[in-house]
């Protein structure tokens, strides 16, 4: 029989969050990925500053300096077919690509949580209707749907966020709906009901906080999907239109100059892949950190 020492007996219990934080701090790959994403994001946010510093502009054309290679004086990452600075275009493109993905992920998460909580809590006809709608929306191939919507509306970047959010909320809704469905029969929910809490209060003060850890994981998955979708869309010529740079439409543009300037094709793709790779790692790390079944 194991003796329990006094100090062990009074060891404060760890909450889900504090344990997750503890695990994350020791998870080197995830930390490295978080650092990379933070670095990329801050570089993108600081793009105007960096542009001033190097005296380059993403839209300024220098027709005498077309197709400069990587490392050319004044243009660290070369120039494109119109002599525009590639580095600043990549950074500004990052602003759009990362910005759209992040904003759309948050927005679709909000829609997903609200719809999922209502569907799971009330059930019945509302639930059936929402499930039917989700099945229907998911049955139209995602890219087909995105392409026809963007072709029809030719949205600006903020409108693009809306389009992605309107299409992308279904996964979160399914998750939250299922969780709400099982959580609403727990004792603490019944207790809250007995004390006269309103439905809204039960949903958003008692149920949603309990699915929060799931949501953080699903946020990273959503961002991966959105970055890939946005760049795929811009790549085939829909989505954000030139001259506004995004990583996707820069790749599309580079298609025509593959022979003359391969660096125009390699760098945007590398950035997309790296971003997606890092967010995958973060998502995996978060899933492990929040998994109650994994012992320390």
């Amino acid at each position, binding site marked *: 029989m194991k003796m329990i020492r006094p100090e062990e007996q009074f060891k404060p219990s760890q909450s889900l969050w504090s344990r997750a934080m503890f695990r994350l701090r020791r998870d080197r790959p995830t930390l490295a990925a978080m650092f990379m994403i933070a670095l990329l994001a801050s570089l993108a946010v600081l793009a105007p500053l960096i542009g001033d510093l190097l005296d380059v502009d993403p839209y300024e054309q220098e027709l005498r300096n077309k197709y400069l290679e990587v490392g050319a004086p004044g243009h660290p990452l070369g120039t494109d077919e119109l002599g525009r600075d590639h580095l600043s275009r990549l950074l500004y493109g990052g602003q759009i690509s990362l910005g759209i993905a992040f904003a759309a992920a948050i927005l679709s998460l909000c829609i997903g949580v609200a719809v999922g909580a209502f569907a799971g809590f009330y059930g019945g006809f509302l639930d059936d209707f929402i499930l039917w709608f989700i099945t229907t929306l998911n049955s139209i191939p995602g890219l087909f749907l995105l392409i*026809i919507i963007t072709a029809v509306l030719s949205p600006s970047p903020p409108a693009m966020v809306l389009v992605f959010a309107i299409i992308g909320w279904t996964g979160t809704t399914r998750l939250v709906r299922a969780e709400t469905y099982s959580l609403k029969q727990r004792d603490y929910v019944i207790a809250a009901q007995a004390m006269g809490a309103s439905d809204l209060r039960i949903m958003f003060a008692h149920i949603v906080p309990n699915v929060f850890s799931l949501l953080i994981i699903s946020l990273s998955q959503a961002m991966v999907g959105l970055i890939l979708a946005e760049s795929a869309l811009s790549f085939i010529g829909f989505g954000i239109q030139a001259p506004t740079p995004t990583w996707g439409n820069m790749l599309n543009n580079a298609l025509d100059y593959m022979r003359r300037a391969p660096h125009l094709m390699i760098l945007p*793709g590398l950035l997309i892949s790296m971003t997606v*790779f890092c967010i995958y790692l973060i998502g995996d790390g978060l899933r492990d950190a929040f998994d109650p079944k994994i012992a320390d």
Partner: protein
Amino acid sequence: MQKYIIRRVIQAIPTLLGITLIVYFIMLLAPGDPVSLLAFDPKIRPDERERLASQLGVNDPFFVQYLRWLIGDDWMMVDTNYDGEADAWGDNYGILRGDFGSSFKFRGSNPLTLIGERLGATIELNIAVLLVGLSSGITIGVLAAVYRGRFFDKFTRIFAVVGDSVPAFWLGLLAIVFFGLILPRMLEPYGIGTGRPILPMGGRCPPVRGGCPPIFERIHYLILPTLVSALGVVAVWSRLMRASMLETINSDYMRTARAKGLSDRNIWVKHGLRNAILPFTVFLGPTFVGLIGGSVIIERIFTWPGVGLLLLDGLVSRDYPIVMASVVIGSVLTVIGYLISDILYALFDPRIRF
């Protein structure tokens, strides 16, 4: 079992109706009203425009227009001489009977015929991708489970994450540059090749009259698009199979089967593989669906003349009947994909009872 299949098929009907509703709604928002698309003359008089509009029914409420598109108007009287009174039977059969109107660009052709011509190419490519992707993904996954923790396992894990992160469109471009430019240049000094691309960089077959030759004569056209598209499939499936195989190997019934002294073959086939292959049935649907969506990208990069490319061309030339038909057909394929996947799952998994 039959009951389950029938129920599943019936469940698909409201989904299909919903798809048509969503597609029709989106296309209604399209710029350029059909009247000005049909009457290219900018000097068209307002009253003529009005007559054309009433003939096309663009002033009717949304649901009337939608229903006419869905089930046609040959069962009701429509106004053909624009006097405001219905006088003749309509001649539109509606998409439920395969009438998607006629293509604007290919004057008068039925969009379904055009899609039928292209569907073969899309399905051919995706079957190749499924064959290559599933066979290598499953093999890699099983081997990774067998050699768990060893170099092969770690290597394939990294490979899977990287393969998942690299977007197909970029990989396709890299493949084109490598096989089209770099490799021929590297090989030329050694007298291999003539500096020309080693593999075809696009298309489904050499540009010849009278359609493509049989598949075995143009299999080299399939190589690049298949490999590029299959990488994602391999990445996902190798991990799926590894997890599923590990779970199976360590389960109690496998130990029981061994303890009972069953033959190896019996253990692996009846107890092991049948359980480990379950993700196959569950994820076959989503994989297929993902491939259909992704076909737009792959077909665009490799100019593969499939439905995805038809959709893109249709959007560029604002050929809306083609666009709507491609999206609806793509969605129908998706629904069928999910249906087959669900039915397979029910067939394979003895734990599901009806």
